[in-house]
Each structure stands twice: as structure tokens, then as C-alpha cells.
């Protein structure tokens, strides 16, 4: 054996020879390389490990710098890996890190080698294997090697520990269950005093936090301590980055007005510096700041303008973006001041908003969204124009990819669904809403899409039935239900099953909540479609001959749905709750300790997380107790409020504890009264303040539940205190009504309280209890039907409606 191998190794080109050879071959480099590759293939089959390893090294070189495929060397690499010699191992690991990937067939065989080397006593060997692991880890490897990793995390050798911490990150990514094993260890390392370990851990956390900030919120105090104590620049930078991700979630972390000022001062220094690097960074920072603090930019205006003439293209681009953001921001804010005081022609303004959202790199999406919805709600006359703009936005598939525009798109969808009667071509709208590219949108927005599609469908069917024709566009209408069910069910199931796979992590950055909502809405829509589809299809064939019975029922359903959707729901003012005077003798408790007492043993439904109101709305002293509750990442606003309604319906009850929780944040609150007079040519902008209406969150009251129970429950759960009034037409009546109610509340409440008040149930029922005269009861935005009135009359006298679980109105 020694003979031929000696000859081989004597004649084998080393890497150095290879490189020299390559350099000398100015012409025919390719030929030289192919010849060498041939040689390498032969050498690599040899049984002598040294020969193999040299060959491996050569092929790694070629692959790395000359981009040749080296997958044929995969198995030989494993053979070399089994050698006891350090140099061989090094070469082998290098080759493996370069070329192995998830679909390499021999990947499975490496597990044992890795395990052996991870447990080795030589720290450099361990380091080699750790490094390899970090590059090639997949689910299986991660799972199998987690225990070893865990041991290494607590190793004594600094060198090893540091690197183990970094590998942990990669392993977490691939195999989330390893979190359970390793996380505690990782957190303990945070308290380690050694600066190197600290920087490694902090680095890992900064990555983790980027992906899922909410789960790491409890660690904020530790991070703060590190920030204060650390002397290393690197560590401070990382910790600051962590905080920048955490800060939006925890209001108490960001009392930062003064620090912003300080930062802007520093930025100014950057901007005037000669070094182009600093200038560029300064501009970038200014742009980020400018989104919220326009004053920062105006202070630094001259410097900014001077940089326009700078030669560096980077700087120019940054500057242009900055300037554009400034301009857009100031347009939006001045126009929306004081209820759009200065705008005379709303049609033009709405089209301007549409165009603004199409500008590339537009960062003002949220503001535009708010304004679109706000104008839609307040200014009736502009709705046709609004629907037209919305249609333009929705049809364009290119916009769906742009994540800044999600807010705007959701506003557009809502507008077109709500005011679909103004649309010129609802079928086109329908197709736009259902186009396949909408799968790019997050679940919460798609839920809105589905809901709007529902509304449009109902509208179309209703108009067709109204006209009494056998549906002429029945062809497209047939396809639509099929399309909807295919689209909605496939997507929902797909997401749902994917969601069940993930554990601590959040799938695609979307919450359980959002997906549940989307799923539910899709189900609603599908249910409706299933119900009406046979009839719709039939009528186009038979022209409603003998399917009278069915036809009537279906058209009734369609009429009901249409009716439900056609009623306008305005927004609830922020001050609505405040305006309700607390009845005498009623004590509202701040936090929910009594609730704990009552339902401590009740298991909440597992996958949902609870939120006591929206964390971004900080009202009078509600303790932010959600830190103790394990939460998924932040919920989209609309889903939060709708979820609250959903829970109330199904019996899970949450005391709003002094705060109006149902306000859906999609709609900006109505402003406080500065009544503006609008003369005729300018469309009326509605105030929507004194009217205490049913919150917009309840968009879909269940029309089929015609029983008294359902109606009363809707009244109760719609607004706990005052029965809903119908919209704008009753502006004048509302104040009168409020007066009446106030009179009634006082005397009777005490008796009510005492009747109810025993230990357990009292706190649940200690809600605002309001009495109303039966004639005044408005259910679901319309006067009671005669049927409901008669039922009421059967109970004697005035009805006291208390909110309780008995599902029956109590009467005295």
C-alpha cells in the first residue's frame, strides 16, 4: 500500500501547485481547470486519506473561487472527516461547509461525526464542528444535536461557549423546539460578567428580537442593565438595536422626547462633517426621524439642501427620499387639520390621496389610510369618487406586493365594500378582490378583502333579484361562487394547518388571531354562497318556474343580508364612555382581580391570546398586565375589536373596566365639537360626535336571529350602556333620548343591585345598568318591529335590562 500511495502523493499536485499552475495559464485556463478536475476525481477515490484530503482541498478551492460544482466530493468529504488527524478534519469541514445543503443526500450521515466532534476535548475541533453545524444545520441535525449543544452552552472554555451561543441562533431557526432546552441557558448567560460572552449573547438576542419582538419583552430589564454597565461599543450598539425593536411594544420604554432631541443634535454634527460616510448615515437617520418629527428636518433644512449638490449618489438618493417624505407628510397633515377645513373640492383631494399612495417609497401609508376612511365616513357626497379611486387601487396587481400600501389597500377595500352601491361595475370589483395575488397580503387584510367581497356579492345578488330578471350575467356569477369557495377555503385551510405546525414562533409574522378571523370570514362567505348558489344557478335555467318555495326563501336571505349591510354604522367617539354617567351606587373596578376570583378555574381557549384593550391606546392608568400573559405578536387593530365582540357573543366576558374597549381603531375618533358651518357647494363633513352609536366593530349582526333573545342580546352587547341609535338622521333625537335615560336610571338601580348582589356573580354584573322605555328601544339600528314590540309589551311596565348570563331580560 505504501508504494502506490507514495507515488501518488509524490505526484499529486498540492493546492499550491494548482494555484501556481492556474496563474501561469493565461490562455486555456478552462482547459487547465478541467484537467485538474479530472485528476482530482481520480485522486479523491484513492484509499489514502492524505491524498483524498489534498484532493478535497483543491476541489474546495476550485469551487469557491472558480465556481465549480463539487457535489461529487460529498461522500469523500465524509470519509476524510472520519480521520483522526486535525488537518484532515479541518479540510473536510471546510469542504462540507462550502458544499453541503439541505438536499445533499449524504447529509444524514454526518450526524454521528458531528456528535463525536462536538464532544471532543480539543476546543479547536469543537469549534470546527460548531462552525460546520452553523452553516449546514437543518431540522434533523438541529434536533439530534441539541443535547450536545446544550452541554456546550455551559462549557468552561470561553472559546467554545461563545461559539456555541452563536450556533444556537441558527439551530433555533431551524428547529424551534430546541428553544425549550436551550433558552434558559441562554438567558443565564445574559448575566455572565465576561464581556465576550455577553457580546455573543446580546448579538444572538438582537437577531431573535428582530424576528419576534414580543416574546423577548420580559427580558427588557436585563438588557437595560447591560446597556448601563457595558463598556464595549459593540455591545451597546446591539442592545440599543434590541431596544429599538422592543420600544414600540412597551410604552413605558419610550419616554424619548429628550433623547430624540439629543439624537437630532448628533445627526446635525454628522451632516456637517466632511466624511461622506457620516453624511450619508446622518441623512438616513434624519429620514427615519422625519417620519414622526418633522421639526427635526426643518431645523436642519439648510444643511440638507447643501448636501443636494454632493457628488455621492447615495447621498442624493437619501436626500430625495427625505424631501419627498417631508412634502407628503406636510400635505397630509395640513389638509386633515380641523376636519379638512381647507378643502373645498373633496373629489380632487381623494384622487390626490390615491395618487400619493402610488408613489414609490411612499411611507405615509397609514396616514393615507386613516384619511381615506375618515373622509368616507364623514363626507357623503364624495363616496362615488372614493369608490372609483378605491377600484383603481384594487385592480392594480402591482400594488399588492408593496408592503407599505397594505394599509391603504385595506382602506380601499373597506370603502368599496361599504359603498358598493356607488360602484359602476361591481363584478369587476369582485374579481379584483379575489385575484390570486392577494395571497401576498397579511391575513388581517385579507380578512377585510373577504368581507368586502361578501358585501359586493350580496349587493349584486340583491340587485339582480330586485330587477326580477333571470340573472343575465349569470355566467360570471356562477363562476364567482366557485372561485370564492376555491380561493377562500384553500387559503384558509392552508394557513390554518401551517399555523398548527409552528409552536412558539409566529407563522409568517401573522397572528393566530388574524388568521382565525380570516378563516371565520371565509366560512361566513362560503356558507352564504352555498345557501344561495343552487338557487342562483337554478333560476338562470328554469326562470323561477317551480322552485317558488326555495326561490322565495333565498331571496329573503339575500334581502336580509343586503339590509344588514346597507345600514350605515358610524364610529364611536373616544369620549363616548365618559359621556355616560355612572349610575348611582355602581362601582367599577379598575383591574380584573374579581374576575380572577370567579373564573380562575376556567380554561381559556388555548390558541387565542387575550388582550385587555389595545396596547397602543394608553388610557387612565390601566395596568399593562399583559406581560404576565403569554402573547403572540401584536394583533391587528380591527381583529382585536372584532374578537372582543365575538367573545361576548359566545359568553366569554371581559369587563372593560372603565374604558371603552370596543372602539375599532380603523376609524379615527370623531373630534370634539367645534362646529363648522358648511355652505352649500362644499359637501357636508359630519361630526359624528354626540351620536352614541353601535360601534362599527359590529359590522355583521346576525340577521337570521330574529328572536327576541337575539335582539335583546344584540342591544346589550352592542353597547353596554345606551341602546344604539340609527345613524346620522337621528342627530337631533339622540340628545333628547340621553336625557330620558338618565332620569330613569337613578331610582331603580339600587334595588337592582341588591337583588343581584351576592358574592360571586356581583362583579360580573356590576356593569352599567340602564333602563329604557320600551318604545325607545332601537334594535340594530331600526325601530322595533311590531313582533318585538308585542313581546315586550307582555312584560309589565318598563324593562330593566341588566347584563347577565341568564340571557333573559329581567323585569321588575
Amino acid at each position, binding site marked *: 500500500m505504501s*508504494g502506490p500511495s*507514495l507515488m501518488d502523493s509524490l505526484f499529486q499536485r498540492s493546492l499550491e501547485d494548482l494555484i501556481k499552475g492556474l496563474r501561469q495559464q493565461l490562455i486555456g485556463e478552462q482547459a487547465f481547470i478541467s484537467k485538474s478536475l479530472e485528476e482530482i476525481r481520480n485522486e479523491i477515490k484513492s484509499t489514502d486519506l492524505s491524498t483524498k484530503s489534498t484532493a478535497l482541498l483543491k476541489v474546495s478551492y476550485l*469551487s469557491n*473561487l472558480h465556481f465549480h460544482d463539487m457535489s461529487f466530493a460529498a461522500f469523500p468529504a465524509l470519509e476524510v472527516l472520519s480521520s483522526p488527524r486535525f488537518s484532515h478534519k479541518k479540510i473536510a469541514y*471546510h469542504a462540507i461547509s462550502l458544499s453541503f445543503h439541505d438536499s445533499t443526500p449524504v447529509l444524514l450521515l454526518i450526524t454521528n461525526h458531528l456528535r463525536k466532534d462536538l464532544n471532543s476535548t480539543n476546543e479547536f475541533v469543537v469549534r470546527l464542528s460548531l462552525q460546520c453545524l452553523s452553516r449546514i444545520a437543518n431540522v434533523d441535525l438541529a434536533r439530534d444535536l441539541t443535547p450536545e449543544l446544550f452541554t456546550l452552552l455551559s462549557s468552561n472554555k470561553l472559546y467554545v461557549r461563545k461559539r456555541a451561543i452563536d450556533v444556537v441562533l*441558527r439551530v433555533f431557526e431551524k428547529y424551534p423546539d430546541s428553544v425549550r432546552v436551550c433558552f434558559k441557558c441562554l438567558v443565564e448567560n445574559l448575566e455572565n460578567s465576561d464581556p*465576550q460572552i455577553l457580546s455573543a449573547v446580546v448579538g444572538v438576542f438582537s437577531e431573535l428580537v*428582530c424576528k419576534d419582538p414580543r416574546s423577548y419583552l420580559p427580558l427588557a430589564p436585563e438588557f437595560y442593565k447591560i446597556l448601563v454597565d457595558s463598556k464595549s461599543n459593540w455591545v451597546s450598539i446591539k442592545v440599543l438595536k434590541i431596544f429599538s425593536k422592543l420600544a414600540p411594544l412597551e410604552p413605558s420604554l419610550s419616554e424619548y422626547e429628550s433623547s430624540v432631541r439629543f439624537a437630532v443634535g448628533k445627526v446635525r454634527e454628522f451632516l456637517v462633517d466632511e466624511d461622506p460616510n457620516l*453624511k450619508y448615515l446622518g441623512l438616513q437617520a434624519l429620514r427615519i426621524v422625519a417620519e414622526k418629527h418633522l421639526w427635526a428636518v426643518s431645523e436642519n433644512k439648510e444643511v440638507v439642501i447643501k448636501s443636494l449638490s454632493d457628488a*455621492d449618489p447615495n447621498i442624493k438618493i437619501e436626500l430625495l427620499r427625505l424631501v419627498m417624505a417631508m412634502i407628503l407628510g406636510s400635505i397630509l397633515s395640513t389638509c386633515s387639520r380641523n376636519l379638512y377645513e381647507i378643502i373645498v373640492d373633496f373629489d380632487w383631494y381623494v384622487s390626490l390621496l390615491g395618487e400619493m399612495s402610488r408613489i414609490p417609497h411612499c411611507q405615509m401609508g397609514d396616514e393615507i389610510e386613516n384619511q381615506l376612511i375618515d373622509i368616507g365616513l364623514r363626507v357623503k357626497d364624495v363616496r362615488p369618487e372614493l369608490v372609483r379611486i378605491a377600484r383603481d387601487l384594487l385592480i392594480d396587481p402591482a400594488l399588492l406586493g408593496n408592503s407599505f400600501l397594505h394599509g391603504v389597500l385595506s382602506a380601499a377595500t373597506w370603502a368599496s365594500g361599504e359603498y358598493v352601491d356607488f360602484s359602476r361595475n361591481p363584478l369587476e370589483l369582485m374579481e379584483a378582490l379575489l385575484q390570486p395575488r392577494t395571497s401576498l397580503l397579511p391575513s388581517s387584510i385579507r380578512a377585510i378583502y373577504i368581507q368586502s367581497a361578501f358585501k359586493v356579492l350580496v349587493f349584486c345578488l340583491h340587485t339582480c333579484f330586485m330587477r326580477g330578471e333571470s340573472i343575465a350575467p349569470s355566467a360570471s356569477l356562477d363562476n364567482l361562487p366557485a372561485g370564492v369557495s376555491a380561493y377562500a377555503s384553500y387559503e384558509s385551510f392552508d394557513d390554518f394547518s401551517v399555523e398548527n405546525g409552528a409552536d412558539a414562533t409566529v407563522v409568517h409574522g401573522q397572528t393566530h388571531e388574524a388568521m382565525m378571523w380570516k378563516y371565520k370570514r371565509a366560512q361566513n362567505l362560503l356558507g352564504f354562497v352555498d345557501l344561495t348558489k343552487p338557487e342562483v344557478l337554478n333560476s338562470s335555467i328554469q326562470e323561477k318556474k317551480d322552485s317558488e318555495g326555495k326561490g322565495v326563501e333565498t331571496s329573503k336571505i339575500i334581502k336580509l343580508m343586503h339590509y344588514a349591510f346597507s345600514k350605515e354604522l358610524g364610529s364611536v367617539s373616544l369620549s363616548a364612555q365618559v359621556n355616560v354617567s355612572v349610575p348611582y351606587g355602581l362601582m367599577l373596578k379598575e383591574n380584573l382581580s374579581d374576575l380572577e376570583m370567579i373564573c380562575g378555574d376556567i380554561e381559556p381557549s388555548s390558541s387565542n391570546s387575550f388582550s385587555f384593550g389595545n396596547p397602543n391606546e394608553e388610557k387612565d392608568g390601566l395596568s399593562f398586565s399583559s406581560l404576565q400573559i403569554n402573547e403572540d405578536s401584536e394583533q391587528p387593530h380591527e381583529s382585536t375589536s372584532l374578537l372582543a365582540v365575538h367573545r361576548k357573543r359566545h359568553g366569554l366576558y371581559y369587563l372593560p373596566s372603565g374604558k371603552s374597549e370596543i372602539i375599532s381603531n380603523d376609524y379615527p375618533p370623531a373630534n370634539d365639537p367645534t362646529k363648522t358651518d358648511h355652505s352649500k357647494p362644499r359637501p357636508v363633513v359630519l361630526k359624528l360626535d354626540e351620536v352614541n352609536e353601535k360601534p362599527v366593530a359590529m359590522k355583521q349582526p346576525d340577521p337570521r336571529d330574529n328572536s327576541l333573545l337575539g335582539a335583546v342580546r344584540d342591544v346589550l352587547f352592542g353597547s353596554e350602556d345606551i341602546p344604539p341609535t340609527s345613524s346620522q338622521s337621528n342627530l337631533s333625537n339622540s340628545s333628547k333620548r340621553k336625557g330620558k335615560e338618565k332620569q330613569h336610571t337613578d331610582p331603580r338601580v339600587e334595588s337592582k343591585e341588591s337583588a343581584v348582589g351576592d358574592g360571586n356573580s356581583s362583579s360580573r354584573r356590576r356593569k352599567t345598568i340602564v333602563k329604557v322605555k320600551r318604545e325607545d328601544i332601537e334594535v340594530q339600528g331600526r325601530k322595533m318591529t311590531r313582533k318585538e314590540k308585542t313581546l315586550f309589551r307582555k312584560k309589565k311596565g318598563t324593562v330593566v335590562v341588566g347584563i347577565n348570563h341568564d340571557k333573559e331580560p329581567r323585569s321588575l
Partner: protein
Amino acid sequence: MIKAVMVMNTQGKTRLAKFYEYLPVEKQQELIRGIFAVLCSRAENVSNFIDAESIFGPDSRLVYKHFATLYFVFVFDSSENELAVLDLIQVFVETLDKCFQNVCELDIVFNYSKVHTILDEMIFGGQVVETSSSEIMKAVEEISKLEAASNAITLIPKSASGWRSR
């Protein structure tokens, strides 16, 4: 995290390439070509940062430094700070200098494994583990000693048999 480290010369030849996320070789080649195209069109005294999104995908930035005939390029995402990475390039070059005594391009060409070793000591799995060039040097020297030791064992039997076969 650091996504990639590259060293290329002013003619576009790659002298060092390390990617911390798996990419097939064709893709790697494409990326490097793209970066080179951007780099050679940069003027002298402009900033050292490039927005690499069109080449590398979302959330990527690029810092480069021009030394003599070489461009040192580091690609990273938003969890790293630009100025810090600029500093890192400095550390890398200083370490190379210490290791090869006045490093030049040829040193990097002929010392493929050593350069990789140095880089691996500095950046591990996309994270920066060591920023002190003396520490890096120490570790690299240890590793070279280990390698030399393990290679030395083979020479004796082979030369013995070779001697015997004569």
C-alpha cells in the same frame, strides 16, 4: 447577521468569498459579478456604503473598502451597524497584515486555507465573535501548530518506507 464576505481585485477576480447563507455556486458567481459592477463605478471619495437590495434581496446592506488593488466587501442585514462593520473590515485587514507581514494580494492568493481560518476566527455563523486582532492571531497560530503537528506524523512512516523501498 453578516451575510457574506468577499475580497476581489480591481479586475474582478475573486480572491476570497464566503457566504453565510447557502447559495448554489452559480448564484454566488452572479452576485459577485453584480457587486463588482457596482464597485468599479464608484468614485474615490464617496461613502463606503451601498444599498445591496437589488443584488442580495431585501434588508441587505453592503460596506466596502478599497485597499491598493483589492476591494474588501462585507454584506450584512439591518441587525448590524454600518460603522461597526467598517471597523470590522479594518480589523480583518490588520490581522492579515500581522499574519503575513505587509500583506499583499499574492499572499491572499497563495494562502487560501489560512485566510479562511483567519476569517473564521473573526466571524462565526454570521455573527461577529472576535474583534481584537491579537486574539485572532493567537488562535490562528494555535491552529496552524495543530495542523503542522498532525501533518508531521505522516512524514516519518512515508519517508521510512520510501527509504526502505529504495
